């Protein structure tokens, strides 16, 4: 093994982070034959350009593969609302049903489908492609997560509008979706990506994604006031709950914006944590 003095390492690391490794700067104690002609490294892809390239490529996949599944997500939510119309008359319960069904579209796509995607990518050796490119791990994870969150926009908006009409709820504050979709999307796609990258087998990633979506369905759509205490706690642990709550509050005649902002803040915090977890999981999965 090479023996390198500590100062030489830090000098090299600093040069490396600057994007170039000058061939002339050689620390003492290095092996001369191999170190004499270190070639310059090609630049790294920077975070934002790489993120946008991954995002764009992922979005284009929707044209090839994802459109049928997006319809499924929307139909599922519309179906649930139609079913619940026989049970729920209006008021607080109706708001919960519409908000829950709308956020369910996000859970279906961002959590379930993204977990499947990363699970299959990992199992099929697809991560090698990204791991042999000089791209920051966060760019791959955020680009994919962002694209999957974007996939949910039409379905979520359509479900929310259709639900509001169906249950005669006010449409005035539906602009809240502009915060709910990206923030709940971040939280749920981060979880989905982490699940897909951590699961030892792709079937387990799929299973985890399905279970997460089922939880979002049951705990999000059913009105909270009817749930027993332990399930209510589980509901509090699920990040999609806060997206549902934020949207439900916006149906009030005079929404409590502080409450909405607090709920969205929880989504954002969970999003940051889960995306950081997913980035760590990606690093771990890419190099074995």
């Amino acid at each position: 093994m090479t023996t390198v003095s500590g100062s030489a390492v830090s000098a090299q690391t600093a040069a490396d982070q600057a994007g170039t490794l000058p061939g002339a700067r050689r620390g003492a104690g290095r092996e001369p034959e191999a170190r004499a002609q270190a070639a310059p490294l090609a630049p790294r892809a920077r975070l934002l350009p790489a993120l946008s390239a991954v995002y764009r490529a992922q979005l284009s996949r929707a044209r090839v593969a994802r459109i049928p599944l997006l319809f499924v997500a929307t139909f599922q939510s519309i179906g649930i609302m139609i079913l619940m119309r026989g049970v729920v008359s209006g008021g607080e319960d109706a708001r919960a049903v519409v908000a829950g069904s709308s956020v369910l579209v996000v859970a279906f796509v961002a959590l379930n489908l993204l977990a499947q995607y990363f699970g299959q990518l990992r199992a099929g050796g697809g991560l090698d492609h990204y791991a042999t490119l000089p791209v920051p791990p966060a760019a791959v994870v955020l680009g994919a997560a962002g694209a999957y969150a974007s996939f949910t926009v039409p379905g979520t908006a359509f479900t929310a509008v259709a639900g509001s009409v169906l249950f005669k709820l006010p449409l005035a504050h539906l602009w809240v979706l502009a915060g709910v979709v990206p923030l709940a999307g971040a939280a749920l796609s981060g979880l989905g990506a982490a699940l897909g990258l951590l699961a030892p087998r792709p079937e387990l990633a799929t299973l985890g994604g399905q279970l997460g979506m089922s939880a979002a369905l049951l705990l999000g759509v059913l009105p909270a006031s009817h749930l027993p205490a332990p399930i209510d706690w589980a509901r509090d642990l699920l990040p999609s709950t806060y997206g549902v709550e934020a949207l439900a509050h916006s149906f009030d005649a005079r929404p409590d914006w502080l409450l909405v902002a607090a709920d969205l803040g929880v989504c954002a915090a969970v999003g940051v944590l889960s995306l950081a977890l997913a980035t760590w999981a990606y690093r771990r999965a890419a190099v074995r």
Partner: protein
Amino acid sequence: MATAEDTVIGTVRGLVKSYPAGRARRGAPAAPAVRATDEVDLDIRRGEIFGLLGPNGAGKTTLVRQLTGLMRPDAGRIELFGHDLVRHPERAARLLAYLGQESTALDELTVALAAETTGRLRGLDPRTARAERDAVLEELGLTALAARPLKKLSGGQRRLACFAAALVGDRPLLILDEPTTGMDPVARRAVWAAVDRRRAERGTTVLLVTHNVIEAETVLDRVAVLEAGRVIACDTPAGLKSLVGDEVRVDLVWRDQPPLDAPEVAALRPRAQEAGRRWSLRLAPAEARAAVAAVTGGPAFAALDDFTLATPSLEDVYLALGGGQAKGLVKG
């Protein structure tokens, strides 16, 4: 090769990678620990096409995964262009382009977007990535397929599209893992023409993984023969062939059963490797002439379907070196 300089750009010393023993499960016995890379030493020179040849399971892909920073070796040293890749595996992505065997990451993209995105992720700005994308697709004859998703293409076309993605964003070293699998001759020619152009213009070095002996003989400058994780020989194809001396290979294919009642045929049998109706023999030139005269002149000729007389190939080298599984090598 006249273009090959003698500068060593890559050295591998004492590289070891073991896979731990698998646990026994119901119905499956415990798998023993495997040394997938066993004390491998290699020197790769600037501008050459260096081959790793061996049957499936010889450790070629494991070795390449360590060179590309995808896998950490248990022990040993890898240096590429003066960079220590065991200590800094993340630098591999900035020194080389890798074409792996899988295309899962690109399958749902169009050929154009796969190439462009890969270029962007190699650090190119949008305009350069698009320009290089167009140039590479044109060079490989893929322009007509640019708008088609990879998964709608045939296996060979998909492979060519992945090769295109590997070429966008110039790198001084290309590591290609069986790049021509499933390709028709036109696509193969496009691949080797593109490789040759980069070697001539930029001194690009190529590390090629293959189990195809004909391809190995025609395109490689030097080749390391792998068997069970070890390098059992490393030289030019011609140099390796001279190891086998001037033995020639005689292949006899019988119509049905070999005519063992003919004494000259019975005498050849102990030296033949039999595979179905085919006998392969490695003989000194004089012996080979005698054998061919015997089977083509006498009554045995009636039972003979076909015969060939050939100078040694890398497959013969592999057998002569004690390689156990030459059936894993592909001819043609």
